[in-house]
């Protein structure tokens, strides 16, 4: 079977674009909040100049809110930087917990927009695999995106990973069941191409509300 490189290439570009657009939206929101808090400080000073007493605690609270938003922006930018460096090497040894944590963090806004809670179950023993980091992030996102749609508003998607012999299994569980009918074509061309490049396997299990992505611990060139 020939790998559909065009589908994988297109998927990668779409993923990169979607994530960077989402990150820019989040940064804009942080800036908007900082802007309003700074504006409110300015308003309070203006009113103090007109005789209204200025409460120092109020300024302290506003300064704290600004600091908190700066920390939020710092986290967003750290994730953006890690994400951008995902394409540095074609293949490298990666920590699955770190990768899943990054994908979940980048997906938070999409989850929030759908009213879905995404949880990463604790992975007690570190799992490292030798693979293409960006393509892995891409396929995990596509599975998560589909799982969020299928879980539906007010439900959860729980990610878990475990080592099974010379492979790892990443599970996207919808413990409250699926509201969709799993009728959308999944895996589609993009998912199939990515899974094939990563030498893995992808299966959906409507009966137990789960998507399972299996990947080898060592991908062969």
């Amino acid at each position, binding site marked *: 079977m020939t790998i559909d490189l065009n589908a994988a290439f297109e998927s990668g570009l779409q993923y990169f674009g979607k994530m960077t657009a989402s990150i820019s939206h989040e940064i804009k929101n942080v800036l908007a909040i*900082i802007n309003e808090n700074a504006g*409110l400080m300015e308003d309070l000073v203006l009113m103090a100049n*007109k005789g209204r007493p200025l409460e120092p605690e109020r300024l302290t609270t506003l300064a704290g809110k600004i600091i908190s938003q700066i920390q939020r922006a710092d986290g967003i930018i750290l994730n953006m930087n890690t994400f951008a460096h995902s394409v540095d090497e074609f293949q490298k040894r990666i920590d699955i917990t770190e990768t899943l944590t990054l994908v979940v963090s980048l997906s938070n806004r999409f989850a929030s927009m*759908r009213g879905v809670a995404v949880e990463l179950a604790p992975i007690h023993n570190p799992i490292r695999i030798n693979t293409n980091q960006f393509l892995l992030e891409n396929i995990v996102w596509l599975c998560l995106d589909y799982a969020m749609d299928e879980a539906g508003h007010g439900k959860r998607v729980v990610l878990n990973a475990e080592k099974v012999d010379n492979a790892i299994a990443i599970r996207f569980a919808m413990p409250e069941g699926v509201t969709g009918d799993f009728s959308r074509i999944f895996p589609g061309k993009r998912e199939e191409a990515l899974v094939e490049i990563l030498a893995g396997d992808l299966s959906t299990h409507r009966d137990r509300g789960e998507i399972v992505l299996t990947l080898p611990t060592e991908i062969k060139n």
Partner: protein
Amino acid sequence: MRILLVDDEEELVATLAERLAMRGIDADWVTNGEDAILKAETESYDLSVLDVKIPRISGINLKRELEKRNPHMKFIFMTGHGSEADYKAGSEEAGSEFYLIKPLDIRLLIEKINTALNSVGGSI
């Protein structure tokens, strides 16, 4: 003049409401579409400031829902994206003069509110 602010960032709308109140504009806020619809069913608003993208419903669809409940309500859209697609959608729905990019300039927002409601006011 009563205004409803809708954005999923609570700190943004809460602070903006306080700043508008300082300027004599009575503003309520909510962080999702369902609450906005509930508010519109029980309260009367002259204008709503909506984010183009809010949880579980687009700002455009929310505008239509709010209009059903109050046909006289005016709208101003705001967005963090500033993308061409958002601009097109927002400006087609509300008119390009009622479309703002975050971070907001409060003087510009008040100017838009005054234009939309044909009113004057809004300074500290």
